[in-house]
């Protein structure tokens, strides 16, 4: 068995192609090349998750971290505390009580949601974080200064930092298996290993269609809300749940990307470089005018160049 893939052929073919283009593309594509509905994403069917933590194992293995044997991930005692992604652990599964069926707790996988308009990408001042064409938000440690503004900006609190590394600390976050998918195509490691179809990989538009269908066809099973459809301007990862998202540790967010406001302000202030230049010019005029009054004070020596000055000013 394995995690589900929606329209596998298309996903695989275009996946490698688009992702290869990413790797070669010199531009930092802030704006998606693909329309959001065509970007790759994952639908997390939370009621299907059994908390086996196989995705944690597969993720660490795929990322090339030193990973303990798969049996260690059977340890259920870790659910006692809320675990968030860490350096060398891009994803974590947490357990939440189920008020409706107490003996059947709810498991939620946490990882980067790969926003359509990522705040971290907007925040990064050197372009070390970038939204790739296939939908992954990827990180380039070589460019990174380690300012950690991405961590301030991320509404989901996803990027983590290697504070204990003195020389080459990195920001660690899920990269949607971008590199391996670009080489071999296919699906992210967590989706591949998922034994219960809790993770479904595909085009975002199709995943949304499927999610709406599921809500429609199983009215008692899901709350009528697809987390990620609108949150923070929309995310590539989408979630379906049987109980309200607020009780599962999901943050409530506005449906507009947080970077919209800051970018609007910044690009407004620098529109065609006019506001800074206008301020420069205005100050120059003030400086020049006040010199004239100063000279007038000193004894009216300005009679001669006055006509010229007025000509310039008017």
């Amino acid at each position, binding site marked *: 068995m394995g995690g589900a893939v929606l329209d596998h052929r298309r996903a695989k073919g275009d996946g490698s192609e688009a992702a290869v283009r990413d790797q070669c593309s010199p531009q*930092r594509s*802030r704006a998606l090349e693909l329309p959001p509905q065509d970007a790759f994403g994952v639908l997390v069917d939370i009621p299907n998750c059994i908390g086996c933590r196989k995705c944690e194992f597969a993720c660490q293995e795929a990322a090339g971290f030193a990973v303990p044997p798969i049996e260690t991930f059977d340890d259920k005692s870790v659910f006692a505390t*809320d675990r*968030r992604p*860490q350096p060398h652990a891009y994803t974590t599964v947490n357990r939440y009580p189920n008020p409706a069926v107490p003996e059947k707790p709810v498991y939620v996988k946490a990882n980067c949601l790969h926003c359509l308009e990522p*705040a971290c*990408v*907007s*925040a*990064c*001042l*050197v*372009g070390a974080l970038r939204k790739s064409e296939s939908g992954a938000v990827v990180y380039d440690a070589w*460019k*990174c*200064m*380690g*300012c*950690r*503004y991405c*961590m*301030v*900006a991320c*509404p*989901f*609190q996803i990027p*983590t*930092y*290697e*504070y*204990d*590394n*003195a020389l*080459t*600390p990195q920001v660690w976050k899920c990269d949607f298996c971008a590199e391996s998918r670009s080489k071999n195509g296919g699906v992210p490691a967590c989706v591949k290993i998922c034994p219960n179809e809790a993770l479904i990989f595909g085009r975002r538009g199709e995943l949304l269609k499927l999610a709406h269908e599921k809500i429609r066809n199983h009215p008692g099973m899901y709350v009528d809300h697809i987390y990620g459809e609108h949150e923070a301007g929309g995310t590539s990862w989408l979630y379906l749940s049987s109980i309200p998202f607020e009780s599962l540790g999901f*943050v*409530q*967010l*506005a449906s507009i990307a*947080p*970077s919209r*406001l*800051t*970018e609007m*302000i*910044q*690009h407004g*202030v*620098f529109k065609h470089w006019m506001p*800074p230049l206008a*301020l*420069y010019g205005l*100050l*120059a005029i*003030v*400086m020049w005018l*006040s*010199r004239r*009054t*100063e000279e007038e004070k000193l004894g009216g020596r300005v009679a001669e160049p006055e006509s010229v000055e007025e000509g310039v000013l008017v």
Partner: protein
Amino acid sequence: MTGREQSRPVVRKFLTPGVGVLLALITAGFAFAVYRFLFGLAAITNLDQQHPWGLWIAIDVATGVALAAGGFTTAALAYIFRREQFHAITRPALLTAMLGYTFVGIGLLADLGRYYNIWHPAWPTMWQGDSVLFEVGMCVMCYLIVLYVEFLPIVCERFVNDKRRPRLARFCVAVQHLVHRTMFLFIIAGVVLSCLHQSSLGNLMVIAPSKMHPLWFTPILSLLFLLSAVAVGFPMVIFESVYAAWALRLKPELDLLRSLARYVPVLLGVYIAFKVGDLLIRESHVYLADGSAQSVMFLSEVVFGLITPFVMFLSVRVRRSARWLLIASLLIVLGVALNRVNVFLTAYQPPYAVKAYFPSIGEFIVTAGLISALILLYRLVVTYFPVITQPVRARLT
């Protein structure tokens, strides 16, 4: 300048107990900084995955930039609006700004995980114009260059009459001449760059609306940062002048500071009006009554750091006395510093936080060391270069 007074090096005993304290703090701060560079941020800071920014960003960077605003505000007043009587205070203000921004850079080095990449934003292939931090970084870098250029004539002035080194003297005359003729370009550029990055510094946190406490989060945070920087500029200069005069046993330029103080209630009043108006329009004042740590911090910022000194500056008695001027100015300085700490730390409430952030001893000591080093450098520079205006007669003693 009146002719009776001019900017000259300050001839005073250097190794005072105060300087001893500074040296001790610098040594301690340096030791902790070395430890940080050897063993990483985790070794001495309390930063965690939920709190990526701490004391060093709030104080060394954000507050440092705000309190260096005396540089561009006095430059604008004395050179653009040509209130030429204020020329005497532009040099100390310029020195503070130059040292302040230099230490912003040094403080940032300690905080950056990959400090050796600090030049990356300046490299065209890595430019990222959507980033607010990019704008701040570029403007600060450019402004630092402007400040050094503006300070160059003061350095040259020391050597123009150096008869033992005639070639150096001639070179300095040439540099002075060149800089003097183009100075107006740099002065205006300094003001424009300051307006840009002082405001953008506030825009930084606007990208995290879901994490910011509503008392501080506002779309006009950048405007509030600009207005507060403009408002804190003159108080910072007044505080520094009175304090430096006391520490160096000089006579403070009280007449000048008094006339500078007349602008303070106006500039501060505009900031208070916008800050309070914004609070009311967003209807965030409801959070003031909840007794939370945030409400206490916000009220202390506004009541003790803005409204109290605003009322004080309106009083003639306060403006007449050097001591009261010092106290009122210090209140504004602390108020704006508290605002920066509040915006970057108090207001920041990340989801999934397991514990609140409070700076570690190491963070405090490094910050104290940096501030001490700044003060000591100020003392050194005024000893060797003509920065502070003194009566000409004192030269004979």
